[in-house]
């Protein structure tokens, strides 16, 4: 295992101390420890909010650079600046509950995002239709049949229920409840173990996502 010394020992020291305090405060029911833990979490929330604001300014700076360079993507930057100014003016000055703000959400944000979702739907169906042409294998056939039977089991076929697809005792229900749940449990256990290992590595300074 290769260990590299950080440029500043204070960063790893701060990480170690705060992490241990939060972790101990989660297990130990001590009032001072709990209070200290809560303060650290509050600071984290504030820092995350500030980071979000900094991210917004960084996004504007990048697009400002594109505008100055007059590249072919300058039009998108102009749209971003226009949308940002409009959103700040409307939501910031008029408020979230204003009708104009609601109109922006109802007629701009939601339809655009919904249309993108429809594009994903069309693309998935198109990819499924050409799956066997591009990769004709057993796993491709199994995947295709699984998708088809899952969709068939999710809806009634004009009021007709297929015995092995619909109902609580159907094969599809068995696949979803038993096999699907078993796979998800494995995934969750893996996520939990990974989280523990990552936390330990961050606490001991082996991983420094905050940088050196």
């Amino acid at each position, binding site marked *: 295992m290769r260990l590299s010394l950080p440029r500043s020992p204070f960063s790893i020291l701060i990480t170690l101390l705060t992490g241990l305090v939060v972790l101990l405060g989660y297990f130990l029911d001590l009032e001072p420890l709990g209070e200290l833990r809560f303060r650290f979490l509050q600071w*984290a929330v504030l820092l995350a909010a500030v980071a979000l604001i900094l991210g917004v300014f960084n996004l504007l700076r990048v697009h400002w650079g594109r505008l100055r360079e007059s590249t072919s993507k300058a039009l998108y930057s102009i749209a971003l600046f226009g949308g940002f100014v409009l959103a700040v003016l409307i939501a910031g000055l008029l408020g*979230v509950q204003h009708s104009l703000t609601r109109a922006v959400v109802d007629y701009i944000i939601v339809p655009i*995002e919904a249309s993108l979702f429809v594009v994903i739907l069309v*693309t998935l169906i198109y990819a499924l239709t050409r799956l066997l*042409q591009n990769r004709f294998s057993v796993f491709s056939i199994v995947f*295709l049949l699984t998708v*088809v039977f899952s969709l068939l089991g999710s809806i009634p076929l004009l009021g007709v229920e297929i015995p092995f697809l619909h109902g609580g005792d159907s094969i599809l229900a068995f696949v979803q409840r038993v096999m*699907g*749940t078993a796979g998800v449990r494995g995934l969750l256990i893996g996520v939990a173990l990974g989280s523990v290992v990552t936390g330990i590595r961050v606490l001991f300074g082996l991983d420094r996502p905050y940088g050196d």
Partner: protein
Amino acid sequence: METQRCPMCGRPNPPDVEVCQYCEARLKPLWAEPSEESSAAIEAGITKSKPALEPEEPLLPDWLIASREQLTGEEPSQPQEAEEEEFLLPPEEMEINNFLGELFSDVPAEEKEEDVPEWLQVLRNEKPPAPETSPTSAGSEQEESMPFWLGFESSEPEEALTESTSAQEKVSPFTGIPFEGIDFDTDFLSLGEKAQSEGEAQPDFQPSVSPFEGVEPFLLEEEGLPQSPSPEEVSLRAEETTPPPVEGDWMNEIPPWLETLPGQEWEESEAPEKEMPPEFLQGVVPPFVETEEELSEIEFPDWLTQVEGTIEPELEAVIDNLTPPTIEMLAEQEEGEGILPEEPEATPPHEDIPVEVVGPLHGLRGVLPAEPMVAEQKKPSKALSELLVTDKQRAQAELFLRIIAEEGKPKPIPTSRRARPHTLWRGLILLALVIAAVIGYLIYPFSTVPQELSVGVFDAMQAVNQLPAQASVLLIVDVEGSDFAEMQATTAGMLDQMMIKGAFFVLVSANQNGALQADRLLREVSRLNGHQYKPSSGWVNLGYLPGGAAGMQAFSQSITEVMPGTVEGEAAWKSERLKNIQTLSDFDLVVVITEDSTRARQWIEQLKGHVPASRLVFAVSAQVEPILRPYYEANPRQIQSVLAGIRDGAIYETQAARRGWAMQLWDAYTLVVMTGIALILIGSSVYTLLALLAWRKAKAEREGR
């Protein structure tokens, strides 16, 4: 840093030292660097340089080259080579070579007239040619070319000097015609029979009577012929040629036996027109011949014919099998080694010759440095460096070369098997889905709603039914705009039931757009179900909760401190409806609405311990249900209920007997899903058939049909 490498041990040494630090060998010679001049002085008398050799000339003895040239009819070798041979070989070996060369030579006697030895000239009774130079000068030249121990003989009388000068022209005794006139068949047979009759033991190949019987033996001794005298000759020599003891200056006196030589008279007489054997050899030796035809007519003795017959095939076989290095190879090797100058320079003065100061030769002057000779890098012989390659190895080498050549050639890029996108097919899919959605939305009602009540829907309805009037409900809305329709259909029936009970909602979101989506969700549900819910009176929006999991954890610990105000900037927890709310456990119900599985998992993990599981309900997208099912089916449960997708929303509305947003979308949803299934089946069948046809076509092309 420059270093000099010891020529003896090979180790590096500093450039300024004269002897090796390891073996004490001299690094710098006492003389200067072995330049061409100095090397010539050093190697004078050791090695004689050769002139540029002719190419393709094999390294063969002169007598063999001469014999070959005579057989092939070519001109004899250059006289310079003969001189080189004389220089390199001692006189005895040179005589033997000349003897053997002449023995197997067919050159007429006229062509080798100049090489007739003195004794043969005496026998021929011819006068040796007069020297071009004076005897004194000749003697001086002879003195220069002879070593010191031969210089004593050079002080003989002028007659002897004359003889020696004329004797420089040498010839093999048998190439002359000493056997002319002798019938070897008859004479030797008769002599042999006579000898056998006398009981004398003779070798098989040697005649019983020497053909040179009666010839003065000193001639053989003087010329150094490789002949051992017979016992008769020894006795004859002892009787006739033993000079009497002479006192005084015996070197300047001609011995009596020398004065009685018949050659003395020959020397004074003129050269005979035709060489004839002397009188004492008349009838014993064959007459001398002058032409090749006469020589061919001579019949040699049997023993000589047998010897020649046995030696010649062996020599030819050896010569044929021999692959000597050509002169061109030797010339190249000499070029690599450096050609030494022909004429050595004068030796430096005695004072200039340095004295050796180290080593076992300490104190000696003029020690030849061995380093230049030892350290001289010589190229290996060309004949040794040539590889003996078999046919198999040559074939493998050619195969390897072909492989290398093919590797260097550009190869065509294989065409991608990925099919080109079919825009028309994509458009058809989109058009079919849109038409299905429109038809499903307009044709009302189109299909039946599933009547089966799932466990999740039942638990959710039970949790809502247990809410008190004017309950406080925390709605955590992490919804993007793309999934808003699905989440609205999923939660519309449940929110309608809460609104019916007059619940007060507190909205919070860990998503940037979640606060706006939550506000829109309540407005739409209130509008569709005919409620009069408005902000502030019906709900408060706390806005965006930053920090991800850390923010959730902090919010779970103290909602009032982490989210103290609303998005409008008002104090959230000082209103009449929320003044009793201090922690999450003070809410009557906590509903998490999200379409993100990660967010759903994080909320479960961070809310655990702060919210009773019986008051935690999740309304999620259909894709998140598998993630939450383990938490829901755990024992004890970590969440109260899971409402997943439009199906559960429609079931909830059906069970609640309230036709809401899910029921309105159900027909369109069903028709779109059925259209999607049909498109997948049709498209997959068509493209699979096309792929099979293409595969069969490619297979047919490969088979050449």
